[in-house]
């Protein structure tokens, strides 16, 4: 049996992506949820790198793990009276619903994916580093969404700041 390196890496990262994803579902307290999510997203970053999307892998680590997760942890700290509070022991009915629905969704998607039989001969085989190419595309063909997203980030930041601001200034109204 020929076990090559890329196969091993794929399974390692796939496991790193999938197992924590399910632990997000089952974890007992909210801080653990966040850290399991971190692990899962790192796994996805690894998968990106396997597929030759080095820039994306890096972005995933920087933005997701460095940005979004920190944001989520801040959220947890500001909202939880006891962040390590464990969830009630008994399995809630809603969790069962979640598992059942998730399982059905997976069954349907897997059936579809395997049933379609995508062509996989073509595609961008190992084309080397993607950073230059991505940068060029973003500044030429995709300049429009690139610019648009900057406007989006601007108003999202201002709006979010307005909404989240403590309410003491509400008195001036």
């Amino acid at each position, binding site marked *: 049996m020929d076990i090559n390196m890329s196969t091993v890496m794929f399974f390692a990262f796939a496991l790193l992506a999938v197992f924590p994803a399910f632990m997000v579902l089952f974890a007992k307290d909210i801080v653990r949820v966040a850290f399991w999510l971190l692990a899962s997203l790192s796994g996805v970053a690894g998968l990106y790198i396997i597929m030759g999307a080095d820039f994306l892998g890096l972005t995933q680590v920087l933005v997701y793990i460095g940005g979004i997760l920190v944001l989520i942890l801040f959220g947890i700290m500001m909202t939880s009276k006891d962040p390590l509070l464990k969830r009630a022991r008994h399995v809630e009915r809603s969790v069962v619903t979640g598992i059942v629905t998730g399982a059905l969704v997976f069954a*349907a*998607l897997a059936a*579809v994916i395997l*049933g*379609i*039989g*995508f062509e996989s001969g*073509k595609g961008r085989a190992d084309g080397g580093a993607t950073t230059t*190419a991505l940068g*060029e*595309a973003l*500044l*030429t*063909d*995709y*300049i*429009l*969404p690139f610019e*648009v*997203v900057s*406007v*989006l980030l*601007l*108003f*999202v930041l*201002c*709006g*979010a700041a*307005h*909404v989240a*601001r403590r*309410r003491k200034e*509400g008195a001036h*109204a």
Partner: protein
Amino acid sequence: MGNDFSQTQDLISRGLAGFIPELVLSALVCVLLLADLFIRGVKPRTTAWIATIGLVLAGATLWPRLAASGEIFGWMQGGTQQGLLVTDRFAWFFQMFCLATALATLPMALDHAAFRARRMGEYHALVVAATLGMFMMAGAVNLLIAWLGIEFASMASYLATAFDKRDRRGSEGGIKYVIYGSVASGVMLYGLSLIYGMTGSLHYGAIAQQLQVSGASDLGLMTAALLVFGGFAYKMAAFPMHFWCPDVYEGAPTPFTAYLSVASKAAGFAVFVRFIAAFTTGEGPSFVAFGSVPFDASFGWPTLIAAAAALSMTVGNLAALWQTNVKRMLAWSSVAQAGYLLMAVAVYAAGRGRPSGGDLGPLIFYFIAYFFMNLGAFHVVTVIASRTGAQHVEDFNGLGRRAPWMAFGLTVCLLSLLGVPPTGGFTGKLQLLQTAVENHLVWLAVLAGINTAISAFYYFKLIRCMYLHENQAGLVTTGTTNAVLLALLVLPVLVLGLAFSPFIELSRSFGF
């Protein structure tokens, strides 16, 4: 790729010149945000004027685009033109539509009790930003831009829904909206990724070409169609993605609810129709993928849309029967209206390839009528709510005496939503039904007729409260601006019901 930098600069300057209205709107967002930040104690009226001027300016710069057609911000690839956005009469109509909605809801926001003396600049900035997103939705010919436009408009909408920080229902509606919207967006993305995987492109034209040349798996396209439809239906507030609608409509500030129920829905339909147009050909089978199978023998877009239309109108109307909160009632009513509108899309999808089909006139005409009748209804609700705190149907008791013109305007708008002649809603519905029957969707037309009967219940409930129930409270003063706006919204409803021939011709000309 392979553009060197000078070419890029050239492209940017040439391309951006075509995007003046969008640039105006972007600038307006910044100005409004800055005004709130840096001008101490800026009055709501001032920011409202800034917003008005900006929107009018955007409209003025948008006007010349009526003549432009098919300019795509794009590139050549594999011998075909690809790109992101298109400027044609269809896009122009919906862009103008969303601008007009933003403009019309401005005075409502000024009147909204909870907004008085608040940081109105940020609210206006969010509305303008949502409009900018809808601009993209209306012109999108690329999966990325379609999705980005939807997200853009959604983000602004989430924030505007939760804008009134002291209102608990606003926050509750906001959090529901953002969770539901994110899931819808995720589901849609998954479907988009399947389409990308099957065709290898993000551009509608290239996708259609690829599907025609080499086809794709029926199963895959069916799944992708459903998942993507989920995302569009969420924007249109149609079955099965309508659940957010009542809660968000109730929670959001009423002026924004008005904006949401008109502009957001219109943009959802615009982006959806263009998507459908790419995925149905002009030659018989309407779901390209189903190759030689004629559409009525198999599952395809027309079937899916017709089913969603039937369910939307039925669910919306039935559920509205129970509603005592006026905003929730109008929310369910808007779900039902989405059903009627989807009927036009189903007819369009089914009719592509037939000589009489492929006509978007009825859809656009109904939207013109919908603009006036729905905004009119919301305008009255906003004004009355901010004066009397009315929330429920019973709070409108005796309004016929207390504010006769407002009550009359609301009555006209409700009758139009119901589809009673001589109102624009009647003419619009008449066209929808007629085209449905012509395209062999008789069952759908009959169902729509029965639905109209059901909807009479709740529309009449409100009318009856206003005129037949007594309330001893005194007169409600409404102010000149509101009266003028009311007249501007209600008179066209009647005009569209009486002298509609030119508008019908006009609306046909906006199709593609």
